[in-house]
Each structure stands twice: as C-alpha cells, then as structure tokens.
C-alpha cells in the first residue's frame, strides 16, 4: 500500500454559511467534500444547533498542503469575525492520491 500524505481540512459552521463555504473550498481547489449535520457549542453559544433552524454543518475536505492553507486562511479572514465557524487541519494518508489534487496532477 503506498499512501500519499494529504491534509484533511475540517470546517464546522453554522448552516447559514454552508453554501458559500462549499463554493469557496471548491474554488480554492478542493476536488470533493464530505458533509454531515452536527450540533455544536462554542464561545458564541450553541444557538446554531437549535432545532428551530437548520443544524450546524461539518465540512471535511481532503486537499493538498497548500490548498489546505488557502482554505484555512479564507475561512479565517471571511468568517471568524462574525460567524460561528471553526476550522482545523490534520495530516491524512490517502490511497488514490491524484484524486485530491487540483487538475488531478499526481501529487
């Protein structure tokens, strides 16, 4: 098994910014994403998970190291100030590495 090192970027955000976040990460070079509904609580309090509205969303995307950095920066600049959003990065080993690189150039 030869795996390739990539970065897993995880974003947890209130539902209101979901679609803007998705188009942003794909614009920045993500080739895919996985999304799930979560309920969260943070410094802003847990309202965004309140069932009266859509639950929060957790977006995970596996990307190359620099795309990961761009996404993280984009989120930080555009959402940290006023929105319930966090982002964190981890290393992952994937099979089929080419899949996660923009324009599929082998990473």
């Amino acid at each position: 098994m030869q795996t390739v090192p990539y970065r897993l970027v995880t974003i947890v955000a209130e539902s209101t910014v979901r679609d803007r976040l998705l188009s942003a990460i794909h614009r920045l070079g993500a080739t895919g994403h996985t999304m799930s509904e979560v309920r969260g609580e943070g410094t802003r309090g847990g309202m965004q998970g309140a069932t009266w509205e859509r639950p929060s969303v957790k977006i995970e995307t596996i990307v190359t190291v620099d795309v990961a950095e761009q996404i993280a920066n984009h989120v930080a600049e555009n959402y940290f100030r006023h929105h319930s959003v966090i982002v964190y990065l981890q290393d992952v080993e994937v099979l089929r590495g080419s899949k996660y690189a923009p324009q599929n150039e082998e990473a």
Partner: protein
Amino acid sequence: MLDILLASLLSPVVLAFALGALAVAVKSDLEIPAPLYRALSIYLLLAIGLKGGTALSETPLGEVVWPVVGTVGLGMLTPITAYAVLRRLGKMDRTNAAALAAHYGSVSAVTFIAAVTVAAFAGVPSEGFMPALVALLEVPAIIVGLLIAYARGERAGSWQDAMKEVVTGQSIVLLLGGMAIGWIAGKEGMAPVEPFFVGGFQGALTLFLLEMGMAAARRLRDLRSVGVFLVAFGIVMPLLHGALGVWVGGLTGLSVGGAAVLGAMVASASYIAAPAAVRVGLPEANLAYYLTASLGITFPFNLTVGIPIYLALAQYLGG
C-alpha cells in the same frame, strides 16, 4: 374578552407550548428530532399557502386590493417604527436596532395561525385570503430592516445574498407556492388532499408548538444578556404594532376577525425568515438579542395574552 382569553390560553396548542417549556425547565430528556420539526414546519407553511390560495380562487379581486395595500404599507412602516423606538428609547446601536427592526416588521406564521383559530372560535372568522397577506408582510419588512443598516455604512454581510435569502427562503417558497397551487387547483381540485392538509393541521400545529415551547424556553436562558429594555420592548412593541394593524385592518375593509388577525400578524416578530436573512446580511448583529426577543418574549406574549387583546380591540373598533 375574558372567556376568549381563557379559551385561547386553554387550547391544546397553547398548552402544548407550555408543556414544551416545562419539559425544558425540568431538564427532561424529551427531544423533538430536528427532521420532525422541519417536516412540521414545511407542512404547516405549505398547508397555510394551500388554504389561502384556495380561498383566493373564490374571492373577487376587489375585496383583496385594499387589504393588500395596507399590509404592504405596514410591512414597510413597522420596521421603521421599531427602529426608531430601539434607537431613541433603547439607545441601541444601529446594527442591532436594524436587525431587530427586520424581525419586528416581519411576521410569525404560527402567531398568525393561532390568531386565525382564536378569531374563528370567537365567532368572528377572518377572511380566507389572509395567508396571502402573511407572505406579503414577511418580505418587505426584512428588506427595509436591512436597508436601514446598509444605508449606514460598511457591512460585514452581503446584500445580494441577504435579498436572495429573503425571496427564495423556504417560508416564502412554501407560502407562495402553496397559494399558487391552491389557487390553480381550486376548491374542487384540493378536495382529495384536504384530509391531510386541513384535517391534520391543528394536530400538527400542536406537536409543532411543543417544540416551539422548548425552543423558547432555551432562549430565555439568554434573558440576562439582553437586558430589561429589550424585554419591555418585546411586550410593548407588539401592543403598539398590533393596535396599528387592527386599525389599518378595519380601514382597509377587513372583517372584525380579519382585522384582529392582521393585528396579530403585525404585532408578531419573525423567528425563522428574519433570523436567516439577518445572519446573512447583518452577521455582526447580536443573535442573542433578536432571537431571545422574538422567540423568547414576543412569541409567547402574543400567543397567550396578545391575540385576545387584538381581538377585543378589533371587536371594540369594528363592533
């Protein structure tokens, strides 16, 4: 008046709201699954729309014109009155005042439904086309509220996204869409779906208010953070807007029941469409303020005490 107050206080719908609040108070593990809650809200909005559209298909245009004009006018006026009160008396910053204005100008569908039920019970049923007015009241207020904010300098949010959120939001799509369907299909065409959308309505509403009670009670935990003024605002503003709505309702030729319902609509504050739009257009506004005020204070107030008052006023003016 008293008997109506009692009747509305002791209706299953209001009692379910109280039960939900109680469940939160005693820290029960009762939880309405989010999908159920969302399903009920989709069902209720669509059902209101269908009902309104069917009625509209049997109403001569003339009867509707003036109420429509009056409603749109109120939708544009009330955010401004609310904003003025918040700025002058409340000394609130522009952003949060504008955010709250959008909420108090807009309308709460559930408050509307409750008002319709109470009016019918009181023997003064409202016009069948009232749901059409709900859709008309919801949108302008939010736009005006955001306009106030955007008219005053740089904003963190996006005006376009906010507008899109308003006009393509779930509640508008379901309300208007349901109305279109009901209007096109007509009374006869709607017959087969009546058991589902009409027969089940009050029961579904009861279940929905169980969750509303829980949500409102959870909101109240933030009460401290919003301060005394906002609490007062959440009770007095509805009374003023409600009286205004009743009065305009009468002027525009609505029946006593219709005027009362319009009053309740104007008095109500949105807690679904407006928050969604404001989150997008005015993210810098403090969410605890507008949610606690509209969902935690104004909604319960109207549901219990407000509606009977607006009804009594309508009967006094119109009788």
